[in-house]
């Protein structure tokens, strides 16, 4: 297969050269790490043998505690023990007011409205808290796999917006993890499920976790997992079931205002009852309140009644996604259940009623996402060059720009396949206008105020013209991780402005750099060394892939003069690479990249031709 070689790293990895890559499920309630070992993807356990790491971080005067022992102190030390931090990722302080039950933390607001949690160890951003969880998982993987990680695939709810995705990627960067890909959780589950069953056709993945709900409709075809549509609610999950029951407890107890510790206490009791009710018809729970003890009986019927409207919300999203996917109900061949909250019997019943088929529950709903991510990570690290598997995702929420009157003009609609690039032209509305505010928003609603604000920037230097004469082209580019870049250009003058969208509630690059320094207490030299190493890796990659490319396609795609020129340039970079000047290497990589661009493009074009070989001739003859 000559075609496949194009995507190969230059040398097929020997077994002992396998690159270590993991899949990480960074969950609201629990997190997991998985890896492919001896051809099989499995989750990794800690020293005590447990696979699930509770997504709980506790800050103490002595240091940071993550996981089970942090969880154990959640009621005792509520302000310093951060649970469900995923719900805070990429959110502004204003959003948090809508998240009931989360208000137990003390937030301090800084510039840009990003919430910082006040803890005994100082103010912590949700990104930093998540990074602690990732660090713990990374350490576990290094200990188990005995080596340095090439990178990780980290899963996010399909319904996460750009701000939430960016925050997750920032957390990984803080934890020193190279992100191979942000993968949508339902897609990861479909991979674990689909490869297992060698399935073909349309499947629905119903993913109800602790804090998020996702529904994805996928088409599986010869190793290609194509997401047709996705929908859900990034602030709805099993935690809300607990809150609904805790609220009921409170009403039975007299309904006074709760203090932080008690709210935790009641939701923990509620969670326990919920879990018991998956096996039993009714549960007696003992509660202590204001020095009094009280026993309450909770039947499954009562519980189902309390959560019914929450489940209805998820079913509505299922219907909408089917419509968006252009798929009829009876085309769905399988329904896969993901997330711990799908253990609730009422959820299973309602999903079965809606899809008119029994959902699949045979894969451990807690582990399936991490397992799927590990399979993808193994492929992305280059360990399986012959794999046909490919995951094609969509944009979960429409992207747009603010126009006159506070209206949102959609530039890319939801459920568009990614990567995608699209541009829209705007004009000035006042005579002599020299600057234009570009406000990027995400969401389905018509009013900007109902959408999520992603970023704002100003394009300056527009020459004064009559209203409507200037032409401003705003280009959006969304990469395979679902992350957005925006650039704006005034067409008559070429005045340009470009940003990588850093969400309004995100951290900027300097903040991340500062946190990195602080968290590792890197000496200046270490930072320099790290930078040098990174540049060398990039130079090696470029040289290896060019060498391989010339070997494979040099003769057919290049003139001998071109080969000579490239070889000369490669020699220059090779010399630079062995020096210790990071800046010079970076510059060298740039020069060689530019010099070889035409070759890369020719190879792409050739691979397109080869992929479609035979078709064009048939078609043209057939339709002439």
């Amino acid at each position, binding site marked *: 297969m000559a*075609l496949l070689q*194009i*995507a190969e*790293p230059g040398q097929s990895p020997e077994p002992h050269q396998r*690159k270590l890559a993991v899949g990480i499920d960074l969950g609201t309630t629990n997190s997991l790490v998985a890896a492919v070992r001896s051809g099989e993807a499995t989750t990794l356990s800690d020293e005590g043998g447990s696979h699930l790491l509770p997504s709980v971080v506790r800050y103490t005067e002595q240091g940071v505690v993550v996981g089970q022992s942090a969880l154990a102190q959640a009621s005792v030390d509520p302000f310093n023990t951060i649970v469900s931090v995923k719900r805070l990722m990429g959110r502004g302080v204003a959003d948090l007011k809508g998240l009931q039950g989360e208000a137990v933390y003390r937030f301090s607001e800084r510039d840009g409205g990003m919430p910082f949690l006040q803890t005994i160890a100082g103010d912590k951003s949700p990104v930093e808290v998540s990074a602690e969880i990732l660090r713990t998982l990374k350490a576990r993987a290094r200990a188990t796999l005995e080596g340095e990680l090439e990178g990780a695939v980290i899963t996010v709810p399909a319904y996460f917006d750009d701000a939430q995705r960016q925050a997750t990627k920032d957390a990984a960067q803080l934890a020193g993890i190279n992100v*191979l*890909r942000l993968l949508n959780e339902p897609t990861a589950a479909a991979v674990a499920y689909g490869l297992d069953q060698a399935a073909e056709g349309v499947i629905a993945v119903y993913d109800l976790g602790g804090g998020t709900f996702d529904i994805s409709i996928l088409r599986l*075809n*010869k190793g*290609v997992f*194509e997401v047709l549509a996705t929908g859900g609610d990034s602030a709805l999950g099993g935690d809300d079931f607990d809150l609904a029951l805790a609220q009921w407890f409170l009403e039975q107890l007299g309904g006074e205002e709760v203090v932080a510790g008690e709210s935790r206490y009641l939701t923990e009791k509620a969670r326990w009852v919920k879990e018991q009710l998956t096996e039993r018809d009714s549960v007696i729970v003992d509660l202590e309140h204001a020095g009094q003890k009280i026993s309450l009986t909770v039947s499954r019927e009562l519980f189902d009644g309390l959560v019914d409207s929450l489940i209805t919300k998820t079913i*509505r999203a299922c*219907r*909408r996604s089917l*419509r968006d996917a252009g798929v009829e109900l009876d085309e769905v061949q399988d329904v896969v259940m993901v997330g711990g909250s799908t253990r609730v019997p009422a959820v299973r019943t309602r999903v079965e009623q809606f899809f008119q088929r029994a959902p699949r529950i045979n894969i451990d709903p807690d582990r399936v996402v991490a397992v799927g991510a590990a399979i993808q990570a193994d*492929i*992305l*690290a*280059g360990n399986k060059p012959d794999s*046909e598997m*490919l*995951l*094609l995702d969509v944009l979960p929420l429409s992207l747009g720009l603010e126009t006159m009157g506070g209206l949102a003009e959609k530039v890319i609609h939801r459920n*568009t*396949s*990614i*990567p*995608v*690039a*699209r541009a829209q032209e705007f004009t000035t509305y006042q005579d002599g206008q020299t600057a234009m505010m570009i406000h990027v928003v995400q969401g389905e609603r018509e009013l900007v105020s109902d959408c999520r604000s992603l970023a704002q920037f100003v394009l300056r230097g527009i020459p004064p013209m009559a209203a409507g004469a200037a032409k401003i082209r705003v280009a959006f*580019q969304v*990469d*395979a991780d679902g992350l957005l870049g925006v650039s704006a250009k005034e067409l008559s003058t070429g005045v340009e402005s470009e940003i990588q969208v850093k969400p309004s509630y995100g951290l900027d690059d300097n903040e991340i750099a500062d946190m990195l320094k602080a968290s590792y207490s890197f000496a200046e030299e270490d930072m320099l060394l790290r930078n040098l190493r990174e540049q060398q890796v*990039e130079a090696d*990659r*470029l040289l290896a*892939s060019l060498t391989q490319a010339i070997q494979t396609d040099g003769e057919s795609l290049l003139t001998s003069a071109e080969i000579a020129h490239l070889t000369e340039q490669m020699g220059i970079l090779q010399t630079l690479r062995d020096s210790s000047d990071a800046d010079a290497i970076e510059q060298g*990589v740039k020069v060689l*990249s530019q010099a*070889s*661009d035409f070759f*890369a*493009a020719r190879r*792409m*074009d050739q*691979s*397109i031709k*080869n*992929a*479609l070989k035979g*078709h*064009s001739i048939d*078609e*043209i003859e*057939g*339709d002439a």
Partner: protein
Amino acid sequence: MMDITQNYFEFLALPVTYQLDLQALSERSRALQKKLHPDRFSHLSDRERRLSVQYTAYLNEAVATLKHPLSRAQYLLKLEGIDTFSESQVQLDPMFLMQQMELRESLEDIADATDPDAQLEQLRQKVEQEMKSLREQFDMNYQQSTPSAHEAAAVCVRKMQFIDKLGREMEALEDKLFDE
């Protein structure tokens, strides 16, 4: 920077026609995704990854445009030099506009109807019927390949845009009904 001079049909090795074989479209698309997608370049150099993102974005745009009957029609006309993508004001015959107003009124009435779901379904069938007939008219005109026939095809496209917008408003209403 990206050297893609072919039109979407050529890019996917498909015949330039309105009666597109959608099965073939998705097969070609998958075959190309397997070669071009950024995940195939994840362990290669930055430059190659960026190139792959550009190619895949072009591929996705091509597939999205050709897949939907309205945008496919618009694209075919664009290849003939008639740009209906960025028209802001169009003239249509009064008969058609009257009919549109009636459809719109019945959509507005649905929200207060006793059985909105059934009424919505009825309207949907009506609209789909209308769309189907416009597609047939478009194809007939398009195939004649004369300037006047192409102009007639453009009129079909403009009408389809109206109906398409109505369809989206129906979806919005459906969402609203679900959410209540």
